[in-house]
Each structure stands twice: as structure tokens, then as C-alpha cells.
């Protein structure tokens, strides 16, 4: 496709005998925000690492701005990459780490400090910028990583699970920051194994599972497909039996189970279910410790989507 920022053509990647991704082809248009959705181990990180030049495709071709990032170092100047892992240079402060990354991306030494301060400020890290990274929380580490990948004003952002391990408040803030960056015209590719996280950032998603692209397009069409399959919601609270018995009567709830101080609801209408949980919790003054949608549920959904046929588009 002419003018595509990322072009992946017939790309496969093996780790020895293990298949990472298989025959993947897609393109990313300039200025778009694309969400890569899939359970852990689906191949999202592999695709992203090929985009930023950390991995070389075993077969096929990955080009970013027309060049192959593994082979051509210059191609990587226009990319900002936020890896999935949370390891940072613990002996440095947040400001030092972001300055280091700025300089390595070609920002002049004299301007690197100002650029790093700006990027950290944009990520809400101004107050903590002089603190050593060693003592940072997961949320602070994610923000520092995002600042480091934004500091040289890249034209393409590749964000691998940027919301993993982040508390709900920080999650909202990070999503807002990413959306603000995208609004400036920066192309963004972001991955997650949670549909709701992707939905908060973009409507354009690619569903990937077992190394293959299962579906791509508008989030609502894909969500409709996913929502046909019962969705599991785990509510950790002080009165799980009461929550279970009250919601068992709802027509969208197809199964109720209990697991170590939590009630696990299977529902055909997640939105309605979340609403009813919220209403019940407020009305009965129930103390909720956690509300999650277990990851393996997504795996089950993808199995359902493939229908054992191994492919779905």
C-alpha cells in the first residue's frame, strides 16, 4: 500500500520449532491508531518486535517507513517503542533514563534534558523525575517507559501492553495521554489482551491468536462477535454468595460459580452485567476487592471464534 507506515507482508516467525506468528499480512496507515488484541502468547509481542527491529522475520518482509528496521538502523529513528517488560535502568533517575534514550535517538545533548523533562511532564511524572527508578511502582515505570519512547517525537509509536499492572486511576490517565499523542497525528500500534483497554484507545483493531490474524476492522463488529460467547466476570467481595444468588436470576447470566472468596459470573451481555454488579454493590453496600475479566476467558473466546477451523476473517 502506498504511503503505509508499517507494511507486513506474508510474515512468519519461528523460535526454533515454535511458531511465533504465521503468514501475517497487514498495513498501518499514517495517523491511525491500531489495537492488537489477543491473549498472552498470541504473537502480539513478536509482531511488534519485528516492527521495531528487535526480531527478524523468518519468512516474509516487515517494512516501516519503507525500510526494514532489523537491517537499517536509520529506520528506527522514527519509531518509539515501549516494551512489555517493566525493567528499567535502576541506577538512573527517570530524568536520566529518558535523557539517555533521547540522546540515543539523535536528540542533541544540549536539548536532551529539556526534551526529557517535557516528555516526563506530559506523562505526569514531573514530581518524580529526579527519583531513582529502583523504587518506582508499576504505574510510574510504565509512564517513564512511555516518556522514553516519546522523547524524540517519533512518527510511529509501538506500545506493547502499556496498561499491564497499572492501577485503574493510572490506567485512565495513560489512556488519555496516548489518545492525546495520537490526536497530534502520530501513528500508534498498541497491544493488549483486554478488549476494554483497546476499546478505550481505538476503534480499529486486529485480533490475533496463535500467531494468526483472526479478524480485523471496527471494534464494534468484532466485539459483537466476541460478546456472543459467554463472558466471565470475577467479583472478589465480602459477600460473594449474595452477589451470585441475586445475579443468577438475570436472563443474561448463564452460569454462576464460586472461587476463593469470589463469585464468577458467565454472562452473554457483559455491559449489562457490569451495570447490575455496580447497582447491587451500591444498593447493598457490598465491599468489592476486585473486579476482573480473567485472561483465559479471552482464549476461550478466540477458540470459539476459530470454531476449530483454524481461521476466521
Amino acid at each position, binding site marked *: 500500500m502506498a504511503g503505509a507506515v508499517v507494511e507486513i507482508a506474508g510474515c512468519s516467525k519461528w523460535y526454533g520449532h515454535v511458531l511465533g506468528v504465521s503468514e501475517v499480512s497487514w498495513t498501518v496507515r499514517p495517523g491511525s491508531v491500531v489495537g492488537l488484541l489477543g491473549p498472552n502468547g498470541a504473537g502480539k509481542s513478536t509482531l511488534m518486535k519485528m516492527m521495531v527491529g528487535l526480531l527478524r522475520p523468518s519468512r516474509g518482509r516487515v517494512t516501516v517507513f519503507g525500510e526494514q528496521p532489523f537491517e537499517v538502523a536509520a529506520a528506527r529513528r522514527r519509531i518509539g517503542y515501549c516494551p512489555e517488560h517493566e525493567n528499567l535502568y535502576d541506577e538512573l533517575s527517570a530524568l536520566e533514563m529518558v535523557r539517555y534514550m533521547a540522546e540515543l535517538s*539523535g536528540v542533541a545533548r544540549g536539548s536532551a534534558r529539556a526534551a526529557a523533562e517535557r516528555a516526563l511532564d506530559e506523562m505526569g511524572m514531573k514530581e518524580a523525575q529526579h527519583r531513582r527508578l529502583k523504587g518506582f511502582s508499576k504505574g510510574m515505570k510504565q509512564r517513564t517507559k512511555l516518556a522514553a519512547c516519546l522523547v524524540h517525537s517519533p512518527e510511529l509509536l509501538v506500545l506493547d501492553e502499556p496498561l499491564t499492572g497499572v492501577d485503574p486511576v493510572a490506567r485512565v490517565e495513560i489512556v488519555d495521554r496516548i489518545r492525546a499523542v495520537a490526536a497530534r497525528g502520530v501513528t500508534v500500534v498498541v497491544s493488549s489482551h483486554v478488549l476494554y483497554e483497546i476499546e478505550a484507545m481505538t476503534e480499529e483493531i486486529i485480533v490475533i491468536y496463535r500467531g494468526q490474524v483472526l479478524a480485523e476492522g471496527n471494534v464494534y463488529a468484532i466485539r459483537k462477535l466476541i460478546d456472543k460467547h459467554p463472558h466471565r466476570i470475577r467479583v472478589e467481595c465480602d459477600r460473594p454468595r449474595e452477589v451470585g444468588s441475586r445475579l443468577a436470576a438475570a436472563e443474561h447470566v448463564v452460569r454462576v460459580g464460586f472461587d476463593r472468596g469470589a463469585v464468577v459470573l458467565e454472562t452473554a451481555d457483559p455491559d449489562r452485567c457490569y451495570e447490575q454488579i455496580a447497582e447491587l454493590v451500591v444498593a447493598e453496600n457490598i465491599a468489592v476487592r476486585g473486579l476482573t475479566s480473567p485472561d483465559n476467558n479471552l482464549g476461550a473466546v478466540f477458540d470459539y471464534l476459530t470454531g476449530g477451523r483454524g481461521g476466521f476473517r
Partner: protein
Amino acid sequence: MSEAERGALGGLPATLIQTRWNVRQMLRGRIVWVAAIFAALPVAYTLLAGMNGAGQWSDVFVPLVMLAALVAPLFMASSMAEEIEERTYTYLWSRPVPRWSVVMGKLLAAFPIAGVLVVASVVGCYALGKGAQADELASGIAAVLAGTIAACAVSAAFAILVPRAGLAITYIYLLALDLPIGAIPFSIRNATITHQIRAVAGVSGVEPPAPLWQAVVWLAGISAFWLAIGFLRLRRAEFSSGEK
């Protein structure tokens, strides 16, 4: 059009940037304290030997050679291995820098720090030892500094090849292979770092002593050989941790 013209950072600027930030990290880490203890050991040995009527320069130089072998890999191997094991290399290699600059940046950072510690140890031993001339001090310093560079190169290669055991394998190689082979009276010892350090220092025991340039060329060759192995591995390395 060259890589640099298209926006890649050249090898030298990328190396120098990484050197500067690696020095900062190494000086703030715990390893510098461990290395300082290593550096103090030969001085303590010389002091004890002197109290017992020994402590000749030619005797205390052997512990100094071993020190050069121990201190440099502490910085180099651990820094390189940590980069790979902790996956922080992902921050570096997704930037427009040549991969080899990561190794050179660490080598140029480890060398002066390890070098200062080793030289301090040499000077301490010289002050406490017996029978050494001023020119022997100069050649001793030059010898251990050259050995420090070579040990950095060896440890870089092992850390890249076997990140989890890079430091241990470097020590095994240097102390169990290089040091004994360097002591045997056959020409194979020319390929060892420890023998060439002694040769630069003029205490190799070889009569007549080989010219200084020969030892320097050997050390440069050994360093280049190990660095080349590291660079070759790094050029196409993908270091997947199995995650997809």
C-alpha cells in the same frame, strides 16, 4: 545515502553516549565496592608478605595480574549480561544505533573504572613491596591496564554468548585456563593474556625478554579476537526469552 545521513546515529557518537551513561550506572552500582575489595587484596598480600620478610616486586606482581583478570570482568560481564537478562537491550536496539556500540560503550566505561582500581592496587603494592625500580612501576601499570582491556574483551564475548553465566565462565577461562597456560614454557602461552601482561611488565621470566611491541600486538590480537566473536553473535542476535 549512508545510514548516518538517513538519521542513524554513527558508531562513535552512539558509543560515547553509552559510555557516559554506563559509567554513571557502574559507579552507582554495588559492583564498584566489590571491585574495590578485590583491588585491596594484592595490597594486603604485599603488606603481609613484607612483614614476613618477603614481598619482592616480582613476587607480588602475580597477584596483580590475577587482579586485572578479576576486576575488569566484574564490570563488563555483569553489565552486558544484565542488559540481556533484564531485557533492557530492547531500549537500546530499538534506537537508531549500531548494535556493536552497546559493547564498545560498556567496554569504554568499564575500562577506566577497573583501570583506576587496578592502578591504585599496583601503586599500593609498589609502595609496600621491595626491590622495584621506578621504571618497573611504569611498566607494571602499563601491563595491568593492557590486561584490563583484554579481560574486558574476553568477558564481553562470554557475556554475549552465555549471558547467565558470562562472569563465571570468564573467571574459569582466565584463572583455570589462561593463567596456567600462560605459566608453561611453550609458545602456546603467547596466546594468553596473563603471560602477555607479565611480558609487558618485564617479569615474564623469558630470557632474553621479547620486545614490548610483540606483547602489545598479542594483547591487541587477543582482544580483537574476542570482541569479533561478541560482535558477530550480537549482529544477528534476537535474544528471545521465549515470550511471544
